[in-house]
């Protein structure tokens, strides 16, 4: 179980607990549940890398405590 921090630089900072083998799509659902936006409106990035929905966190090497950027579609 890892905890990821998502920040949209506009006031929304969200800490989400998830498994390493969760996909980005699952992470988006969890974020959507916590922030109230719709899951398909969320875009998770790290600098210019936009994370794709079907790849797991483990494959992206997202570790515990890592900060990700939250953007909207």
């Amino acid at each position, binding site marked *: *179980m890892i905890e990821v921090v998502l920040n949209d630089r506009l006031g929304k900072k969200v800490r989400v607990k998830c498994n390493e083998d969760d996909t980005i799509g699952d992470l988006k659902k969890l974020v959507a549940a916590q922030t109230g936006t719709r899951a*398909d409106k969320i875009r998770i990035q790290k600098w210019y890398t936009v994370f794709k929905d079907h790849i797991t966190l483990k494959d992206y090497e997202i570790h515990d405590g890592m900060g990700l950027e939250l953007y909207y579609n």
Partner: protein
Amino acid sequence: MANRTDPAAKSIHGTNPQNLVEKILRSKIYQNTYWKEQCFGLTAETLVDKAMELDHLGGTYGGSRKPTPFMCLILKMLQIQPDKEIVVEFIKNDEYKYVRVLGAFYMRLTGSVTDVYRYLEPLYNDYRKLRLKLSEGKFCLTHVDEVIDELLTKDYSCDIALPRVQKRWTLEACGLLEPRRSALEDDFEEEEEKEEEEQAMDSVEDDTHEKASIPFIFLCYNYYRGRSPIRERDRDRRRDRQYRDRDYERDYGRGRERDRDRDRDRDRERDRDKDRDRDRDRERDRHRLRDDRDYGRERERERDREGRERERRDRERGRRRSRSRSRSRDRRDRDHEDGDHRKRRTRGSVSPRRRPEDDGSTRDEPKKKKEKKEKKSDGTDHPDPEIAEANRLRASLGLKPLK
């Protein structure tokens, strides 16, 4: 300049009509080449030509959320705000189905509630196929009536948040709308009559429950006949008593099949003989309860109108029935349904639930958005409250528990 709303346009739902499409999506559309090239300087007439060239529906697609031409045309219509007559013409036209759906979508966004129901419900009878572009960029198949159903029941479609419309029964209660009439009403009747002929009469129900059924009269499928509610009620009382028991339970089982395969049922129903003189209220209403499109609406209506009496009665009936002769499948379905009823009562909102299997094994699916059978084994009773909370959320989303 090109993106400003027509200065003569009225505000819709209290805001600039273009604001119905949210900011990010609107910016995406403004930057889209289709918008810049094709949608510049469109008027209502030239818009029709563009609409006729449409060949698919959809919201945004791809990694960069590119909007479809359908969305661009919707925004253009919001910008120029054509008259209601023009929009109704779009909807009424039979030849171009995408123009029809475009008109229907625009009506749903901008029309008043009564207009929405009045103009969109006839489109339920349109079964033509449509091409829908998914968010991955692939195409999938849908139908006009499915799209209309989505527009009327959900509050989000094609990446646009639809304005709220009241439930149909609220409007009927206010007298703003006539009761729902469906073209399939006759087919349902035939089916019920067939069932009645096949089985013997069951035990008579006591009269007290008749009263609870009266509001259902107003929800009848009276498409071809203009029978008055009073006559319906009398007929209901006289004939329904004997049939209701058996049919109610049977309909539940059958209804599920109907949910699963509407087309198959429609064909089957059409093949039955027509017999117009039968009472149809109860059975029809129950059928409608199971009907795809009305599922959510009818469920709410039932709960609100009939309250506990009905569910209690059903349970009793179910218990009585299990002792008498009945098909095993019905019994399982019935128990299933009764438990469902009981649990549904406590839920505030309604969502049309599809049952993937027809046996009684999924009894325990109370308030979850998705079926989650291993509720107890998914870590929701973890000692750490935070983790338990997180696991509950995950379970509701359909994810496995935390490790």
